[in-house]
Structures are given as structure tokens and as C-alpha cells.
């Protein structure tokens, strides 16, 4: 078989138009999930009884259940319920006019928050308690100790896993096509359908992701280097 290079170039350009959707979904999800994930991690570390139980149930549910189910519930079941509530209450709103992008943000945030909270929790756990005590004894408040001593160190440890999560998120947003959201992958798939040009379409998608995820990784590596200057040099084991 020969590759249809014209088609490949055309699809590549077309699918780039989905980039704002892919990146927008990813950024919106991170904006929601990072603070929520951090709070959940703190709850998990400090063993606040009831909250902790709730947090752990949520984390296992969000990570553990198939995302198709989560999409089905958020995209189909909840709007139907909301519509019924609106009708019973006599509100004059069109529940279904909502852009499906918002459903996608809800689904991905629901998932990503759980993943991020575990990343943050495991990172904070690596910081030695002595550092916290030293910070307190030198007159810092608990909050200051966290902000100035613990979090910067934990962040450094968390970075490789945060990079993993972000990249998985970028690639994972293609599931939004189930909700009729047209991201990079969706556009390539739509193009492929008429002439069945799946090889070329997936190649186009691959090229776009290599650049986007490549840039994301480069960014994370840069941050890791900047933050890592205080860390002891790498040694062979």
C-alpha cells in the first residue's frame, strides 16, 4: 500500500484546528483538578476521620470505574435529570443548550483530581518530618512551613508524575468525541470515514501528539531542572 501524502497533509492541517479544544480541555481540567487534588491529598495525610474515608472512596471510584460509565452518567443521565427538575420547578432554561465541552471538563476533572491527589500525597510523604519540625522551631507557622519548605520539595518529587498525568490527560481527552466534542483525534477520524483512510489519519494524529506532548515534556523537564538545583547530584546505584 502507498501512503496518500496529500490526504495526510490535509488531515494534519485540519486536525490542528482541534488543538485549541484538546489543549483547552486539558488546561481547564488541570485548573479544576490541581487545587482539588492538593486538598484531597492533605485530607489523606492528616487522617481527618470522616473526610478521609470519603476521600478514599472517591479516589477509588474515580480511578477505578470505567470512564465510559462516567461519560454516560455526566453526558446522558445527569442532563436528563436536570431537565426533569427544571420542568417540575417551572424554570425556563434549556438544559440541553450547554456546550458538551463542559460535560467533558466535568468528566476529566472528576478523574484527574483523583490521580493528582495520589501524586501529591506520595510526594509530600517523601519530605522528612524533621524539616517540618525545624521550620516550626525556627518560628514559621504550619502554613508557612508548608508553603516555603514542604511544597517546593514535594513539587520536585511530584514533577515526573505530574508530567505523566498531564500527558495522559492530553491523550485521554480524545474520549470527549463520545460526547461529540471535536478534538484533534476526532477530526482525523471524521476525515478518515469517507474514504477509510485510517492509516494516514492516525499518522496525522501521531504527528500532532508528538509535538504537543513533546513540548509539554520539555516544559516539565525545564521546571524540574530549575527546581532541582538544590538537590544533591544524581548518583549511580
Amino acid at each position: 500500500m502507498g501512503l496518500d501524502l496529500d490526504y495526510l497533509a490535509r488531515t494534519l492541517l485540519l486536525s490542528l484546528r482541534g488543538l485549541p479544544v484538546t489543549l483547552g480541555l486539558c488546561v481547564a481540567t488541570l485548573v479544576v483538578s490541581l487545587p482539588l487534588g492538593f486538598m484531597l491529598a492533605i485530607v489523606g495525610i492528616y487522617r481527618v476521620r470522616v473526610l478521609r474515608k470519603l476521600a478514599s472512596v472517591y479516589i477509588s471510584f474515580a480511578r477505578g470505574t470505567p470512564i465510559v460509565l462516567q461519560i454516560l452518567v455526566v453526558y446522558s443521565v445527569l442532563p436528563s435529570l436536570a431537565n426533569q427538575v427544571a420542568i417540575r420547578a417551572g424554570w425556563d432554561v434549556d438544559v440541553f443548550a450547554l456546550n458538551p465541552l463542559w460535560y467533558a471538563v466535568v468528566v476529566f476533572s472528576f478523574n484527574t483530581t483523583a490521580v493528582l491527589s495520589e501524586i501529591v500525597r506520595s510526594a509530600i510523604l517523601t519530605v522528612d518530618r524533621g524539616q517540618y519540625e525545624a521550620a516550626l522551631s525556627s518560628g514559621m507557622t504550619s502554613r508557612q512551613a508548608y508553603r516555603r519548605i514542604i511544597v517546593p520539595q514535594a513539587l520536585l518529587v511530584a514533577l515526573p508524575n505530574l508530567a505523566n498525568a498531564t500527558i495522559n490527560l492530553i491523550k485521554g481527552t480524545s474520549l470527549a468525541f463520545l460526547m461529540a466534542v471535536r478534538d484533534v483525534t476526532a477530526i482525523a477520524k471524521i476525515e478518515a470515514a469517507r474514504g477509510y483512510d485510517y492509516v494516514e489519519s492516525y499518522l496525522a494524529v501521531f504527528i500532532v501528539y508528538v509535538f504537543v506532548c513533546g513540548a509539554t515534556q520539555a516544559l516539565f523537564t525545564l521546571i524540574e531542572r530549575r527546581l532541582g538545583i538544590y538537590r544533591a547530584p544524581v548518583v549511580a546505584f
Partner: protein
Amino acid sequence: MGRPFNPGYILEVLPRLLAFLPVTLGVAAATAVLGTLLGFVLAKAKLGSSALARGLADAYTWVLRCTPSIVLLFLVYYGLPALVKAAFGVDASRWHRAFYVVLTFTLFFAATMSELMRSAYLAVDRGQREAALSHGLSEFQAFRRIVLPQAAVSALPNVATALVALLKEGSLAYTVGLVDLMGQGSLIIARGFGAWSLETYLAAALIYWALTVAIEKAAGALERRLSVGRRGLA
């Protein structure tokens, strides 16, 4: 005009899904073992002194993470037989799909694991290794007794995340016709012309959730065992 909902169907469909649990678990277990081994080799290369090995391992992780899983699956499913044919003249295209699926997931899982191990290793204070060495432990003993348990503690929550993701990733196998638990769920729904989708996916979710909780409990128990005597923030 409410949504038709049939809770009894969840119980009815549960055993039909469970029949495909071995496929899901088998693919995940094989991938976890092979991927962890390959991930360890990669992590060692990344932390090692050879610039070439480090460059290769970094490049591997970089490319793999950028690759959508369906693209890698097709690359492996079609690329490998082409390579095998060119190199050995053997037709590999009829080998069992499970082989290609496990290979694909292994390549991904190794990239994730290598980064996980790298960050966990770096999180252990360098002084600990030096102290162990000065007490007469060999390099290997220092790694196994001092560094590894501490690195494992910080890695465990993320290993659990990776394992759970791996279980669910199995549904991609459906793309090349390997039916796992989730694939069976989709097929059941399709055979009923889309009927009882919520109930079927809920049944699948129950199984996945139970597996997730089991993984989390195991990771948590291990985390507590390895943390004995540690002075962490908790």
C-alpha cells in the same frame, strides 16, 4: 418520561462479564510483570553514568509517552509482523492477538514505571546511601535494605494508579478483536441494540471498583509495612 432503569439487570449481567475477567487480569498481570522489568532497566539507565544509555532511555520514554495507545497498538500489530517477515521470513501476522496487546501495553507501562522509579529513587536522600556504605554495607545491600524500601513507599500510591489504569486500558484490546471484560460489556449492549447500557456499565464498574479497592488495600498495607520507623509528615 424517566429513563428506563432495570437494577435487576445489573445482577443478571454480572456473571456474563465475570466470565471475561481472566482475560482482563491475564493481560494486566503479564504487562505488569514485563513492564516493571523493562521499566527497571530504563530507570537504571536514566540514573546511571553512561550518557548513551541515559539518552536512549530518555528518548524512549519521551517518544512512548507522546504516542496515543491506539497508534502504538497498530504500529506493533502491523509493524512487528513486517519486521519479523523481513528479518526471519516468518509470517507473524496470525500470532495470537494477546501477544501484540501485551507487548503494546508493556512498552507503555515500562515508560510510566521508569519515570515512577526514577522520581522515587531521587526522593531518597543521598546521605542515606552514603551512611549505609560507611557502615560497611555493600552498594547492593545499601540499595536493597536502605534505598529501595524508602523509594518504594513514595512510589506505591502511583504504582497503584498505574496498575488501575492498566486494568482499564485493557479495553483497548477490543480494537484488535481481543475481548476483555469491558469489551464483553460493549458487546452485550450491542447485541441488545444499545439496551441497558447504564446497567451493563454499572455492573462492569462494580467489578473494576472491587479490583481497584483490592489494589489500593494491598498498596496501603505494603506502604504501612515499609514505613515502620520512618518519620514522615503523616
